């Protein structure tokens, strides 16, 4: 989904800088998901299906409200339902809208070997350009949130685009438009942080001491953020990562190892060539042949 109206700041498997004169001076965008206001109606899931023309397979009931059971190539967002019994013995129904977090430092983009299959726009959205995707699944390996899914149909990777096509023309993402409770809000990242701060203050005044904003620094912050009642325990929300960051293995694999390996290979070839220039070939002389006749 190459969008000329959005400027690309980072492109997978590319060693040169992107055209970077145009920037998002009006601010980067962010989606704020207020889990404390979510009622689990799934209007966001439906809006996502409609706008993006996605229809997942009708699955089976897994014993709860969560449907489908997991994200897929055709389900880019999903309400995850967790039942948490708090220390007072009360049940809390923690519902979290899961999907791509649009990291400022995206592990998928770092891992991708195909030039331009994953891009980051200057407004912060991380987008997959499936026409360049080769289907290797390295984005799945690189993602700290387990988001990308490889389609069985076309072997391409898919995930939430943050409706980059809508945002490019000044519209909010489809899920935001559909949310009936105001649990989903969209705007500049700064505005969303401010709005979240107000929500957190309100929650604290009503007894949620640990309420807070989830905007994890380990991935440079995200362009999808959560307001959580229990910001000290993100894992309560169906395993939301407490401290997500790009794995050290992935950093090494996609960082130092690339130039080091190329240099080592080039150096090995050069050493061979200069050995030939300086020492020359090791040849059998007539004297060796004669010695062999005597020696045998």
């Amino acid at each position, binding site marked *: 989904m190459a969008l000329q109206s959005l400027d690309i700041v980072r492109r997978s498997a590319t060693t040169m800088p992107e055209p970077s004169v145009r920037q998002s001076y009006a601010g980067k965008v962010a989606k704020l998901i207020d889990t404390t206001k979510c009622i689990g109606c799934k209007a966001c899931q439906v809006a996502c299906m409609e706008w993006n023309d996605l229809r997942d397979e009708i699955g089976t009931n897994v014993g709860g409200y969560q449907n489908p059971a997991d994200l897929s190539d055709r389900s880019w967002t999903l309400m995850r339902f967790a039942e948490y019994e708090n220390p007072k013995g009360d049940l809390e129904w923690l519902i979290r809208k899961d999907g791509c977090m649009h990291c400022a430092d995206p592990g998928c983009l770092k891992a991708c070997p195909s030039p331009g299959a994953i891009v980051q726009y200057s407004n912060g959205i991380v987008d997959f350009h499936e026409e360049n995707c080769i289907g290797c699944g390295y984005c799945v390996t690189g993602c700290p949130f387990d988001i990308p899914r*490889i389609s069985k149909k076309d072997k391409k990777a898919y995930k939430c685009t943050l409706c980059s096509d809508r945002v490019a023309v000044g519209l909010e993402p489809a899920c935001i438009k559909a949310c009936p409770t105001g649990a989903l809000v969209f705007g500049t990242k700064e505005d969303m942080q401010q709005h979240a701060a107000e929500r957190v203050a309100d929650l604290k005044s009503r007894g949620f001491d640990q309420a807070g904003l989830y905007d994890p620094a380990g991935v440079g912050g995200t362009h999808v953020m959560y307001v959580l009642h229990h910001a000290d325990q993100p894992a309560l929300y169906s395993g939301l990562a407490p401290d997500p960051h790009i794995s050290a293995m992935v950093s090494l694999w996609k960082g130092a190892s690339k130039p080091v390996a190329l240099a080592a290979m080039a150096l090995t070839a050069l050493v061979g060539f200069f050995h030939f220039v300086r020492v020359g070939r090791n040849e*059998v002389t007539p004297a*060796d042949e004669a010695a062999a006749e005597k020696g045998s």
Partner: protein
Amino acid sequence: MSDNQRRDSLVRYSAELRTNHWLNAIAFVLAALSGLALFHPALFWFSNLFGGGPWTRILHPFIGLTAALIFLMLAAALWGDNRMKPADWQWLKQWRDVVNSREDRLPEVGRYNGGQKLLFLVLVIGMVGLLLSGLVIWRAYFSHYFPVGLIRLASLVHAVCAFTLICAILVHIYAGFWVRGSVDAMVRGTVTRGWAWKHHRAWFRQITHAANPRTGPN
């Protein structure tokens, strides 16, 4: 009369072994080129040799698997002659004499020298590492059996093994070119008696004595 029966020639590699070696060489080069395309953006254009990015992604694991299986057959055939002995470590210690072609100062070498045995060891370890890590990161068939932490580790191991192996093979190719007659040995199967005498004297004594009982050891 075939080359193998020429009076001045000693048979070093059978037709079966030569076939195996060159199949291995072809598979290895293809695996390396397709793998490098997926390793570094500067080399992504290698994927054009295989029909584009998706085709490279599809073909690479099958080429790699083929290379690994052929290699393990070759390694099994050469295993016995490549075990390190004390004289091999001495040979390696004198690497300065080796690279300056001062073979008269080196311990007598059997069928393979210390460098060849070390290379063999590196290739076996590297190839087994590539095979195992490659299966873990083969997204289409196997990755879903493994946790993501192991897939990340395997991705790194695969890259490290591959670049070590490529460097080792570059050394192997150069050594074959440097020691004149080695490529002939692997193409025609034979070496001259002088070549064996110069580079693999212990092997020379062994086979010439076995072949000619009249001049056996005394």
